[in-house]
């Protein structure tokens, strides 16, 4: 247990040391979201109907980019070997790492999303659904992403390969999450979508830590 707590604490402290970087996922999120109006034109009605999709695609890409920092550094500086050799439970340690990563890279997005929703003039009911969908969906993205990062960690140029592995896994989350917001925006009930997201979260949280641990042992050979 002390090991797990130390892990969480270390990663949060590392994030704090690099606190300049804390802003970056958020900025990326905002930047990508604001590319769209530039690219597709700025008519308010159209933007409003696109908003759930744009915000979620931006969140998904931010999550994807943030993955790079999850195990890559630990592998490069040899810390990963030390983790693998720790006598504690690897899946618990890895769970702590993913939690720290989510707190640092995804939570700020969730907090910022309402602002984007205002910029895109999303109706108020849809806004709260957007936040809930992000709260349920982004941890799934982090967990699924971690499995793929672990698999590619020893490869020299994992960037694109990682993307390729991860994006298909992200698709169900994207569909249900963006769907929930879009349903809410037209006034219907998003409950079904959100339940599905919640189910995905429970599933991912219970199963992936073991997958991540196994993948790390393979990837770090």
């Amino acid at each position, binding site marked *: 247990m002390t090991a797990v707590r130390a892990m969480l604490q270390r990663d949060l402290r590392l994030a704090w040391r690099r606190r300049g970087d804390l802003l970056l996922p958020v900025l990326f999120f905002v930047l990508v979201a604001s590319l769209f109006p*530039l690219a597709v034109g700025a008519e*308010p009605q159209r933007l409003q109907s696109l908003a759930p999709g744009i915000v979620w695609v931006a969140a998904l890409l931010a999550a994807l980019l943030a993955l790079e920092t999850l195990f890559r550094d630990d592998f490069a500086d040899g810390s990963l070997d030390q983790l693998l050799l720790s006598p504690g439970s690897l899946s618990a340690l890895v769970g702590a790492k993913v939690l720290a990563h989510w707190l640092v890279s995804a939570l700020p997005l969730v907090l910022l999303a309402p602002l984007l929703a205002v910029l895109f*003039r999303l109706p108020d009911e849809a806004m709260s659904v957007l936040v809930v969908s992000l709260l349920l969906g982004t941890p799934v993205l982090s967990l699924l992403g971690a499995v793929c990062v672990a698999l590619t960690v020893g490869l020299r140029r994992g960037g694109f390969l990682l993307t390729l592995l991860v994006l298909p896994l992200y698709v169900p989350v994207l569909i249900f999450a963006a769907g929930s917001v879009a349903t809410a925006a037209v006034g219907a009930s998003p409950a079904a979508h959100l339940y599905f997201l919640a189910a995905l979260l429970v599933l991912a949280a219970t199963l992936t830590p073991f997958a991540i641990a196994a993948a790390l042992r393979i990837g770090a050979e």
Partner: protein
Amino acid sequence: MFAGNALASLLAPPRFYRFSGVVLPWLSVLCAALFALGLYSGLVLAPPDYQQGDSYRIMFVHVPAAWLSMFAYLILAGAGFMALVWRIKLAEAVAAGVAPIGASFTLLALVTGALWGKPMWGAWWVWDARLTAELILLFLYLGYIGLQSAIADTRQAARAGAVLALVGVVNIPIIHYSVIWWSTLHQGPTVSKLDAPSIHASMLAPLLLMSAAFLLVFVIALLLRTRAELLARERRSAWVQALLEGAP
């Protein structure tokens, strides 16, 4: 190289430090006076607008802030150029000093614009070309600041920032001409049209006064920040040591 050396000795940090120390109090007095005049004529003397009522008065903050946000970027790029080519230390300090000020004015322009937009266009924000360009300007500043904080060595950071600022300067004309190139919701050039400003003199005068006052705020902030940067960068040099010993 020769021009560089001459310039470098003219802009030697101790000389600048002394000079700026002398002018700062005078500038502050002038700035306060301009603000008093500008606010009085803008809030009291100028008549309400026939369309916008009183809400247009936010212009007296919005327009100077927007202008200065762009002006600051030009200074950033100019100082960067001098730092890169002639390695002038003062220019490095100016560049490091002006970036956060520029970012603040950009933020001010965005916020006042949004406040003005709500009554005018019925929305805090529209994805209009000029508004987006101004947002991008904010990101340019943030990128510059991020790069500075990521590089530990200050001189290396200054030169790296200079390259970035010079490349980013392309965006300034795009912001300025965005209203002309695309049909936008945002006001076209009203004041800055050279031939005849399409704005009434009773509104133009306070705008110009406020602009001058804001310009002075900008200059004062820049001098203060540059002085602080210089002290930090030169803390081991003889003149700073002498200064410190002179102080009680």
